[in-house]
């Protein structure tokens, strides 16, 4: 028990840094920012796994030790308890008056009658009875230990299920614009994190097209702009041959498709541009995904056009509701697209796409570029790009939604095991385990002296009153 206690402390203590330092698993961007801000301490902390606490060897060591000690302590107890469940309570001690909750009284009945009456009535109220020549031993509350064992074993199952689910599952994210589609295939994901034993052939072959995205926001009041509802409508095909289904996806209402779950996790805007070269030929026409930067959906993004010479890059803001106040730079003041506008800068030079280093599609590498102009546009307006680079028309916008798609074969088991754990825990903490004894002896007047006593094996209230009840049933 002392080992378990100390390991539990260590586990609690070891989790603390996981909440104080940014973690790679949940916020990789914050980790890189932290490393940039703390060039001296950062790498040392990193080497101590403080940005990967829950995947660190020391955290793993603690919980492994805990579970080894759990198995080592609980599995033998299963055998012991099994024996106990099949045997009778121990004999009554000779001197009951040394025990707690002791009572004695005298009745005129015969000894054997008292014993028989006690056996029948105690048995009926759930006690396991062992009889002797002039005593009865009774015990109840075996469910306490059963529950305790169920609880600890269920914890082991939870751990196995979590590990199994993580190893054989995956988690991916993808951004889909209105009108665009997604087919469940590793190459279509923006990020894809498979477990160690994930088998790509297991990806369920569904596909969908995002037909519409809609959002509602609080207007006015202290929570002005807070999100009130968002919903993605899409056409879903569960397997290549199945019919098209109309599906609505909302936060908290994931879509379950044959072992995978699709969650709506975020959304944003994609301004649409038509860019023509000096000769009036279209060099780019699409909706570009811009990423929201604040609660009012001030969004930033880029368009890269590698085919022009020199190469052209557009970088800028999409503002769903253009703020009148420009003192802090281009800013949106409300998340809904009430007064959409873009605020763009155009760059000319080398986009740096050919040097082999992977680039973010949301950032422009401007090291080898020069800015040729800036402009603010509302839908329908066209910008004559400086230096005869042609025109850029801001034709409108679409919305996009981001989805998290996961597969976890372990979670059902983890759920069942945790329910089992709660069940066991409840028994283990609330069922009292106690023993009671009755001894009868003949008094000098030929009457029968009855003695009753009890013993609580665990801390649970009400021993005295329970023994009183037992005595009362005989008086």
């Amino acid at each position: 028990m002392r080992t378990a206690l100390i390991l539990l402390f260590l586990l609690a203590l070891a989790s603390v840094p996981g909440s104080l330092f940014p973690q790679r698993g949940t916020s990789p961007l914050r980790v890189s920012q932290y490393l940039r801000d703390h060039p001296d301490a950062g790498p040392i902390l990193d080497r101590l796994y403080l940005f990967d606490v829950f995947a660190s060897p020391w955290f793993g060591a603690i919980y492994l030790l805990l579970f080894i000690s759990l198995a080592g302590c609980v599995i033998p107890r299963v055998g012991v308890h099994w024996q106990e469940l099949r045997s009778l309570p121990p004999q009554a001690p000779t001197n009951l008056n040394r025990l707690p909750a002791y009572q004695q009284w005298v009745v005129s009945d015969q000894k054997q009658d008292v014993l028989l009456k006690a056996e029948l009535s105690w048995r009926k109220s759930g006690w396991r009875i062992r009889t002797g020549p002039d005593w009865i031993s009774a015990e109840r509350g075996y469910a306490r230990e059963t529950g305790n064992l169920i609880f600890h074993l269920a914890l082991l199952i939870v751990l196995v299920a979590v590990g199994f689910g993580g190893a054989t599952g995956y988690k991916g994210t993808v951004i889909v614009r209105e009108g665009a589609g997604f087919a469940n295939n590793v190459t279509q994901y923006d990020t894809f994190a498979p477990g160690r034993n994930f088998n790509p052939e297991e990806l369920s072959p569904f596909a969908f097209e995002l037909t519409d995205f809609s959002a509602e926001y609080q207007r006015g009041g202290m929570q002005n702009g807070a999100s009130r509802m968002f919903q993605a409508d899409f056409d879903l095909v569960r397997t290549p041959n199945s019919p098209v289904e109309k599906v609505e996806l909302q936060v908290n209402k994931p879509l379950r498709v044959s072992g995978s779950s699709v969650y709506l996790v975020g959304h944003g805007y994609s301004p649409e541009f038509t860019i023509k070269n000096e000769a009036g030929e279209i060099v780019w026409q699409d909706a570009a995904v811009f990423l929201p930067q604040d609660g009012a959906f001030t969004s930033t993004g880029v368009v890269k056009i590698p085919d022009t010479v020199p190469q052209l890059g557009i970088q800028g803001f999409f503002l769903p509701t253009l703020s009148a106040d420009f003192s802090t730079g281009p800013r949106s003041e409300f998340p809904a697209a009430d007064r959409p506008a873009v605020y763009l800068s155009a760059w000319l030079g080398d986009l740096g796409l050919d040097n082999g280093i992977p680039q973010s599609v949301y950032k422009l590498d401007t090291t080898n570029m020069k800015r040729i102009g800036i402009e603010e546009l509302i839908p329908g307006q066209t910008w004559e790009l400086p230096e005869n680079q042609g025109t850029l028309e801001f034709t409108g916008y679409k919305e996009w939604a981001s989805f998290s798609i996961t597969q976890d074969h372990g979670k059902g088991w983890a759920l069942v095991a945790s329910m089992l754990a709660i069940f066991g825990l409840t028994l283990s903490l609330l069922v009292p385990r106690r023993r009671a004894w009755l001894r009868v002896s003949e008094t000098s007047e030929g009457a029968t002296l009855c003695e009753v006593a009890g013993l609580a094996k665990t801390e649970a209230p009400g021993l005295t009153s329970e023994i009183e009840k037992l005595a009362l049933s005989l008086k």
Partner: protein
Amino acid sequence: MQIDQSLAELSDLLIYGAMTTLTAGMVAFSVALAKGRQLEPISNSENRSIEISHQLKMGATTTLETPSVTTSNAEGAGRRAGNIGMAVMWLSTILIGGALVLRGLSANRLPWGNMYEFSIAAGFSITAAYCALSLKRDLRWLGLFITIPVLLALGLAITVLYTESAPLVPALRSYWLAIHVTTAIVCIGAFTVGALLSSLYLIAEKSEDRIKASTTATKLDQLAKRLPNADRLDLMAYRIHAFMFPLWTFSVIAGAIWAEAAWGRYWGWDPKETWAFITWVIYAAYLHARATAGWRGRRAAYIAIAGFLAIIFNYFVVNTVIQGLHSYSGLN
């Protein structure tokens, strides 16, 4: 969804009302503690039995009766103050409960969707649990210690955490929210009482030690005289924790189910989840400590208090500061 502002304002008024009555309750309970009789002699049982056998031998001695006559006036005042305190606690419970109901009606949803409402609800669960428990036994000695955290919770809520009544953001709209948050509130209320009892146990236990060692009495001993003895306090604390631990476990699991439905993973070690886990492990350690030789009593009580501090940290620090710590980067 329309917000009924007048109901929301009435709800705020009831909170101010409850703070007033709780303050009155605090005064009444202080008087009750200062003037009240000793609940149980806390001198150790040996002394007590000596006293009793002495009494038996001598018959009812006048020396024992005289002081009890002089204390009975003060005792009466203490008892009256305690009764006033209890009545005020019932009133406060009704006021806070009313504020919650009105708040819920004003936005047409369960009234626990933000830190303001959560604090009010936790305050309610503490006073309601106290009143309910006091139906079965005399808990006037505990009243003062109940009013303090509830006043703090309401005070912080109405000043620092205040949020206008509003509909929920989409992420919070789930019946698992109802289940997860409701159970969490109940547990936090009960764990608050548990931590109070464990703290009082520590005071009583130290005081009993001092009396045994016949060292000079301190102010705390005066307090301890008005409390149940250390063993009983310890047992009460244990019962609350043991009763609540399964519910807390359930609450954490309900949170995981909700997280699965909302974010696609049932456990992600975000700071909030991490601290829920830490709290759970500390309380498991408490239950183990109670079954480990050398750890029962004082050490177990410290663990229970540590569990409560983890809850408070999760609520106030993780909800506000930890986010803030990270938002320095603007990447929030």
